[in-house]
């Protein structure tokens, strides 16, 4: 039985893009596979578990991966295929509860509080969810069930692949005592280092740290950090259909460092396009106007917009317009610090031409690709943010 006031599930698809490709192509199943960007100078976005055995990791260059495993099979990524699959998975999850939040392209939160009681044990419900996903998509995932999102996320990371971890409320404190502080979701590398310098090594140390000490180092965030150290997270999992009405949909991203590297700038724009497109779809909209915002290292900021004669619905279409805008800007005069993509001229829905399947399902699928958790911001769009992080690494190594 589940005795906590809430039952939150975090579900993380295993080696997602690589698995999708292996399901698609029987000739590469069971083999070391890497998903990469297109082009020569690109990096590993996802590695299959077989490739990971050779030490291949996300963020490596293709060259490095091939040196570790000469026979590794390289698959150029196909984001729209993965997005479509994500929506299918979401559809399956909605069959269990309305309280489903897409956290990133391969991760979901679910609030199972009211549903889990119908099962003999929490395991039974989790097994059924995993089985349904497996049956309908042939894909595996790792799940963590806990009293809140923070701990559920932690649980899903504890056993991979195909994991099923349940963190019972009475076990939380034991886990936090052993858990390195930077394993808490939301505590990044640099915060982790700062905490260690303060003598805070384990999550429970953070939970027991004097509030004033944390406040003096981290300001208001100190309060949140302390809650995290105690395994407390009161954030909710909203229903999948909850969203706001907006006149424009925009998103901005500050680069990890100021740069003139066009590969990196384009990767960032792609990430922003994916993000705004998914939000647009979530709202069942299409857009006629795209604006690209550029901020230089000296904080000079400008936007250029382009309106097309039709309503755009795909990420690729929006990205192509952004590239045209970028071209029209000409040579960038200073290193870029921040980029933004905004969609406006929004229309309800799009002209649907589907001949097949039931329309209802299709529109539900398209409706909400990713309800992005604003709290955690830019971790959410995986492929491109990885491109950026790895570009960051490459930059520092050079």
């Amino acid at each position, binding site marked *: 039985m589940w005795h906590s006031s809430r039952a939150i599930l975090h579900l993380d698809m295993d080696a997602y893009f690589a698995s999708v490709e292996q399901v698609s192509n029987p000739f590469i199943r069971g083999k070391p596979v890497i998903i990469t960007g297109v082009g020569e100078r690109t990096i590993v976005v996802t590695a299959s578990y077989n490739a990971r055995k050779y030490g291949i990791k996300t963020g490596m260059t293709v060259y490095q991966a091939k040196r570790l495993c000469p026979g590794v099979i390289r698959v*150029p990524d196909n984001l729209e295929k993965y997005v479509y699959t994500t929506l299918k998975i979401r559809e399956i999850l909605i069959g269990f509860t309305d309280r489903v939040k897409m956290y990133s392209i391969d991760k979901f939160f679910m609030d199972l509080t009211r549903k889990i009681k119908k099962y003999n044990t929490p395991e039974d419900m989790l097994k059924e969810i995993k089985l349904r996903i497996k049956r309908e998509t042939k894909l595996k995932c790792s799940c963590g069930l806990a009293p809140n999102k923070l701990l559920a996320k932690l649980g899903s990371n504890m056993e991979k692949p195909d994991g099923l971890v349940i963190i019972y409320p009475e076990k939380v404190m034991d886990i936090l005592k052993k858990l390195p502080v930077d394993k808490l979701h939301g505590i990044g590398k640099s915060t982790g280092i700062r905490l260690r310098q303060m003598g805070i090594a384990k999550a429970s140390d953070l939970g027991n740290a004097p509030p004033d000490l944390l406040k003096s180092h981290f300001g208001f965030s100190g309060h949140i950090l302390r809650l995290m150290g105690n395994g407390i997270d009161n954030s909710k999992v909203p229903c999948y259909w909850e969203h706001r009405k907006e006149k424009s949909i925009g998103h901005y991203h500050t680069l990890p460092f100021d740069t003139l590297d066009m590969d990196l700038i384009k990767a960032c724009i792609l990430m922003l396009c994916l993000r705004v497109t998914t939000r647009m779809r979530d709202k069942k909209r299409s857009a006629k106007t795209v604006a690209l915002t550029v901020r230089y290292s000296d904080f000079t900021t400008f936007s250029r917009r382009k309106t097309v004669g*039709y309503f755009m619905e795909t990420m690729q279409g929006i990205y192509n317009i952004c590239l045209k805008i970028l071209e029209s800007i000409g040579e960038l005069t200073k290193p870029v610090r921040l980029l933004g993509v905004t969609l406006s001229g929004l229309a309800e829905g799009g002209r649907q031409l*589907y001949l097949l399947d039931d329309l209802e399902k299709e529109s539900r699928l398209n409706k909400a690709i990713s309800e992005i958790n604003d709290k955690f911001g830019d971790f959410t769009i995986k492929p491109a943010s990885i491109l950026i992080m790895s570009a960051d690494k490459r930059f520092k190594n050079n």
Partner: protein
Amino acid sequence: MYVLVKEPISVVAIFSSGKIIPRFFIWKKRKYSIEEVTYLWRTKIGSVPIIHFSVTTEKTFYEISYNLKSFNWQLEKLYVA
């Protein structure tokens, strides 16, 4: 190795009960029998829906696509071991 092809093909497919099942295709005057449709997903170009199929023949993997406006089929890519 994945090879990008992007060439038009002729396809014989079954359209039934809201589904499309490609059975064989003709590319460069050769016929390829499809053994299995292993994956399906949809995209759009502008407002035109495209259905993509991953398919296998006896020896090879292909991705083909169907444009729901022009009714044209295209061989997108193939995989050679």
